[in-house]
Each structure stands twice: as structure tokens, then as C-alpha cells.
């Protein structure tokens, strides 16, 4: 029973990861094509590091109707969320199998990911 649950979960995670990569890739491609002049030099000005406020970037893009930029960030968030959802699915499966130690370990990994994002947001 446990082994079958594990196999089913592995298959589900596998399908989820494949679909997620395709969706994120399509969002990024569409956003990039809408926001970039292909013959231009979009990397100019990135020689020097300058801290940016993500909230400000997104608010500006929203108010100026820059759909391409918003789609790009949508794709980036989708891509980063793939491993996180995968850890969550694993934690739930272990919990269902009453494997409390490994389930706790998986939730600890999730908590660490949340802490990492929090640190990024506050810096």
C-alpha cells in the first residue's frame, strides 16, 4: 500500500514538474518577446550592481501596463515554486503514510524555504 502510494506520488510529481516547466517557459518566452527589442542591447547598464526593490518594479510595470515584464516575473515565480510544491506534496504523502519523522523533515525544509524568501524580502 505504502509502496503504491509512493509510486503514484512519484508519477504525479513527475507530471507536475514537466507541466510546470512548460508553463513557466511559455510565460517567460511570451514576456521576454513582448518586453525586449531583439536587435537591441538589453544587457547594457547591468555591468554595475545596484539593489532593486522588487515591489517597486512590479508596481511600476503594473501602472505603466508593461505586460511583458509582468509575464516574465510570473514565469520566474512559477519556476521557483515548482520545487517548493514538490516538497509540499512529499510532506503530505509522508503524513498520509503516518511517517511522522520524514513528514516533519519535509515540513522543516518548507519552513527553511519560507525563511529564505523572507530574508530576501527584508533585505
Amino acid at each position, binding site marked *: 500500500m505504502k509502496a503504491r502510494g*509512493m509510486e503514484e506520488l512519484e508519477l504525479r510529481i513527475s507530471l507536475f514538474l514537466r507541466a510546470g516547466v512548460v508553463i513557466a517557459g511559455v510565460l517567460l518566452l511570451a514576456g521576454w518577446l513582448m518586453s525586449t527589442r531583439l536587435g537591441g542591447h538589453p544587457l547594457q547598464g547591468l555591468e554595475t550592481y545596484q539593489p532593486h526593490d522588487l515591489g517597486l518594479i512590479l508596481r511600476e510595470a503594473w501602472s505603466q501596463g508593461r505586460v511583458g515584464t509582468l509575464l516574465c516575473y510570473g514565469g*520566474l515565480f512559477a519556476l521557483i515554486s515548482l520545487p517548493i510544491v514538490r516538497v509540499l506534496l512529499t510532506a503530505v504523502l509522508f503524513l498520509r503514510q503516518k511517517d511522522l519523522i520524514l513528514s516533519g523533515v519535509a515540513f522543516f525544509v518548507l519552513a527553511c524555504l519560507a525563511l529564505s524568501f523572507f530574508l530576501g524580502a527584508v533585505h
Partner: protein
Amino acid sequence: MDALILLATSVVAGFIGSLLGLGGGIILIPVLTLFFHVNIRYAIAASLISIIATSSGAAAGFLRDRLTNLRLAVLLETGTVTGAIAGFLFSRFVNASVLFLLFGGFLLFSALMMLRRREEHHGQRDHPWSARLKLAGVYPEKNQPVAYAVENVPLGLFAMFGAGVLSALLGIGSGIFKVLAMDGAMKLPMKVSSATSNFMIGVTASASAGAYLLQGDVRPEIAAPVAVGIIAGSWVGARAMVHLPALWIRRIFVVVLAIVSVQMIMKGLS
């Protein structure tokens, strides 16, 4: 024109990375910094995004083939993710010159590791932690199930912490270090350690990539073409793998890595 060159370079990076079992970061960071003159911090953040894309795509295949040890991966992720947090915090105190030197050293180490012949292991004595958490597993070899034990779990966890620090600091997947720890310390079979490492790389990278994204360091003008190119390149590479002389590509790539590592070190020293 930069945009199209960057897209083409990322496709090539994804293609080569897929053929040689490497993440794209090892190719992309030198190209972004030495050729496009992008600041290394933006290059690192973009590289982490591309690593999530390749790892997620490849992990799906490995899971289907029943090579990934999911239970062990979850445990070892505690080491890689806490290491990634430490690396992210540490990165703010490390200047660009040191990052170039570290990356150059990492490239040289990677070139040496690509020359080594990996030895097949089959763990015999299960570590008490492994026995308690039921980490030992079975994998298919020539259609036969082969059982293996997991040795020295604490050393493996400690090595994963180091791999996590380097991943966040240098924008790499740290697959080389993860495989080294699982092969050498934990005595896992090669196929299992490669698949389990690949499965963990995405989580390790997402810990620091998420932090860099929320900090505003992931620039879409770099990250979008890089991720799209890497996804496309690795997809083609996985299908072309059986038709190409991977050994010769590996040998040529080792020489290229060695040259680029010297350039990165020289840039760090200058």
C-alpha cells in the same frame, strides 16, 4: 543583438549541460560575465533560475525511471537548504573579486572531476539513521532490482550543507559536490546518487533563487532568455545524447573549462 546572442548561448549551454550531466551555470556565468560584462551578482541570480528549469525537467525523467531515492533526498535537502540560506546571507559580505576567484577555482575542480573515473559502490552496512528512517532502497539494473544500504548519513548531511553554501554563493547546482558525497561517503550506487542529486538541485537552487528574486537581483532581461534557452537546449540535448560522441565532447569541454577557469581567476585578481 545581445538578446539573440544570449538566447543562442543559453540554448548551447542547455544542450552541452544535458549531454554532460552538468547544470547550465558552469557555462552561463563565464559567458555572462566575461563576454557580456554583466555584473557577477546578476549572473549568479539568473543562473540559479536556469538550474531550477533544468533540474525540474530532468528530475521528472529520473523519478519515472525509479532511480531517485525520495526519502533520502528529503532528508539531505535539510542540509542543502540551510546551507543555501547561509550562502545567501554570506554573499552580501563577499565582493565580486572573491566571487570570480571562487568560481574560477570551482571550474578547475569541475574539470578535474570530469576526468576522474567514478567507481561503482553498493553500501553494505546501513547507518543507524538510515535504518531508523528506512532510507535504504532498491533500483533497477538491467531489469533486475538491486538493493543498497546507505552509509555515513551525518557526513553526507554535512557535505550537503557545504554544497548548499556554494550553490547560493556561486549560482551553481553543486551537483558535483552532492554526487561526490553520495558516492564517496554514503556509498550509493552511481545512478541513484546522480538521480537523487538532480532531484535535490532544484530545491537547493529555489531557496537562494527565491531570496535573490525577492531582493530584486533576478533581472528578467537576463533570466528570461537564459531560462527559455536552457529549457530548449536541454530538451534537444537529451534527445541527441544517444547519437553524439559524449566522450569526445567531454574531453573538449574539460579543456574549455580549464581555460575559462584561468580567465575567471585572472579577472578576480585584476
